[in-house]
């Protein structure tokens, strides 16, 4: 079974990659399996300078999901280029650098910095982090701002840009179309939904940052719906994510319109989840009659012959 997928900048042996922030820079997971089995690795968000992130607790369990408010802790783009990318570059896998910032200038700076290395294959533009006070999500909830930061980054980078969309919006199609017009080469969706949990004993929010990003199987139906809606309105490829936990879930995302997928929270449950899904995918595709990844992409988009609903 041919699992290969070709997307702008990404010539991947399979459509499976760990999601940003759930895999660090690959070091820890490299002791569990050969990272060369992965289609790509999406690195933890990079900012201009080192960030120490939010106070703890930073994570909480929710029904079929989790909240996190790490707060973009990372060593800064220079250190990542110096110390992390050379490590990953030794593996036969694509490298996607996720970039974040508090200002358009910061996004610009970080994007440009990645031109220094030859080992990054694409950028993922995180305009959807709900866990920092400034920047992040504010760029992802306004089509104009989203387009502006996309355009700015496109001007300075020589890499394809995948814009990572926030689900915390009324109209995700509007944002998707705006960043497509601004030159995005692809979309990455979805980031986490803003959530909160109350800690009864202390009578305050459990997460020190109060709100956190909800991820895991709980949000899968929302991710599928958004990809389904966006796919019909844009022509750039989509990297899908949100609650994927097995190979059946991957097929569900492909049918809804994703061209490839990323796996986040499930890595914490099972550090071997990515290779296990890669191994399981051929059987699942086969079972439902597909001979390649591309064949399944968008196949579930169903245009009703007539309106059967009785509104």
């Amino acid at each position, binding site marked *: 079974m041919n699992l290969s997928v070709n997307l702008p900048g990404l010539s991947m042996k399979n459509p499976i990659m760990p999601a940003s922030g759930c895999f660090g820079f690959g070091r820890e*997971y490299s002791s569990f399996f050969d990272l060369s089995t992965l289609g790509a690795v999406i690195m933890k968000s990079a900012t201009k300078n080192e960030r*120490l992130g939010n106070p703890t607790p*930073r994570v909480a*369990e929710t029904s079929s999901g989790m909240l996190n408010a790490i707060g973009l802790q990372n060593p800064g783009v220079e250190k990542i280029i110096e110390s992390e990318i050379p490590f990953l570059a030794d593996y036969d896998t694509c490298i996607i650098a996720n970039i974040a910032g508090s200002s358009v200038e910061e996004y610009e700076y970080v994007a440009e910095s990645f031109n220094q290395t030859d080992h990054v294959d694409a950028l993922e533009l995180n305009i959807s982090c709900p866990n920092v006070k400034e920047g992040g999500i504010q760029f992802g909830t306004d089509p104009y701002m989203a387009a502006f930061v996309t355009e700015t980054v496109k001007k300075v980078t020589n890499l394809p840009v995948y814009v990572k969309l926030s689900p915390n919006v009324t109209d995700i199609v509007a944002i998707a179309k705006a960043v497509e017009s601004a030159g995005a080469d692809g979309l990455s969706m979805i980031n986490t939904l803003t959530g909160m949990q109350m800690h009864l004993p202390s009578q305050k929010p459990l997460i020190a940052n109060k709100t956190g990003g909800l991820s895991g199987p709980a949000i899968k139906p929302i991710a599928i719906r958004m990809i389904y809606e966006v796919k019909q309105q844009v022509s750039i490829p989509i990297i899908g994510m949100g609650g994927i936990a097995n190979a059946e879930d991957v097929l569900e995302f492909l049918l809804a319109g994703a061209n490839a997928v990323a796996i986040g929270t499930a*890595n914490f449950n099972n550090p071997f989840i990515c290779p296990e899904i890669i191994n399981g995918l051929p059987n699942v595709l086969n079972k439902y009659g597909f001979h390649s990844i591309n064949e399944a992409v968008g196949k579930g988009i169903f245009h009703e012959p007539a309106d059967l609903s009785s509104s």
Partner: protein
Amino acid sequence: MINKVNMAILKKKFIAKDTIEFVLKNEFISHHASPGQFLHILIDGLTLRRPVSIADIDKSSNEVTIAFKIVGTGTKKLASYEPGQSIDVLGPLGNGFDISNTHPKKVLLIGGGIGIPPLYHLGKRLSENNVKIISILGYQTKESVFYEREFQELGDTYVVTDDGTHGYQGLVTDVLTKVSSFDTFYTCGPTPMLKAIKERLSNSDGYVSLEERMGCGIGACLACVIPTSDGEGYKKICQDGPVFHAKEVNLS
């Protein structure tokens, strides 16, 4: 070296109120784990694994003991597992107590509640190396007391309870004066207790074992950080810890 393994539950025992001891079997863990390390346990229906310290190891029989308290959904579910079933474990995780490089003659173990189990594993190993052990164990109340006899077998043991229903009444720090000199202290328990001990024993060499809510458990997600005492950065409790030199980290 870390692995994902299945550990068969051999024995299950209620050792105190809401406190359960499991004897688990696995060769890999029993041979690779050192005192202070923990297991990251997958519990049916939960998204995140739960960290639980290793309380004892018998290498000859490949048995690994854990003891945990029911405090929420995860531990409640874990407590429902029965001998014959097995659990999916990631381990051994973290950096345990440093006992190879230092050569203390006499150590003080200070444990609070569910922080006591890893100190038992430590005490047993140290005592095999002829180190003299003094223990201070703190519990909420009489019904919560466990491992008292086990620690007494290792050496002098002072038990305190919050309400005085067993042993001395008060906090572990209240009996510190009863302990004569020691070379190193090792402590694990609730953060306020660790802070108090750090202050009281600021002139002694010592190690603290910390807890924080965890995601990955292996150092990748940055959920479990603690500021270092130089104010310049963070350490990961799951990977750099859970045991730190008392001077290394900032408990606030």
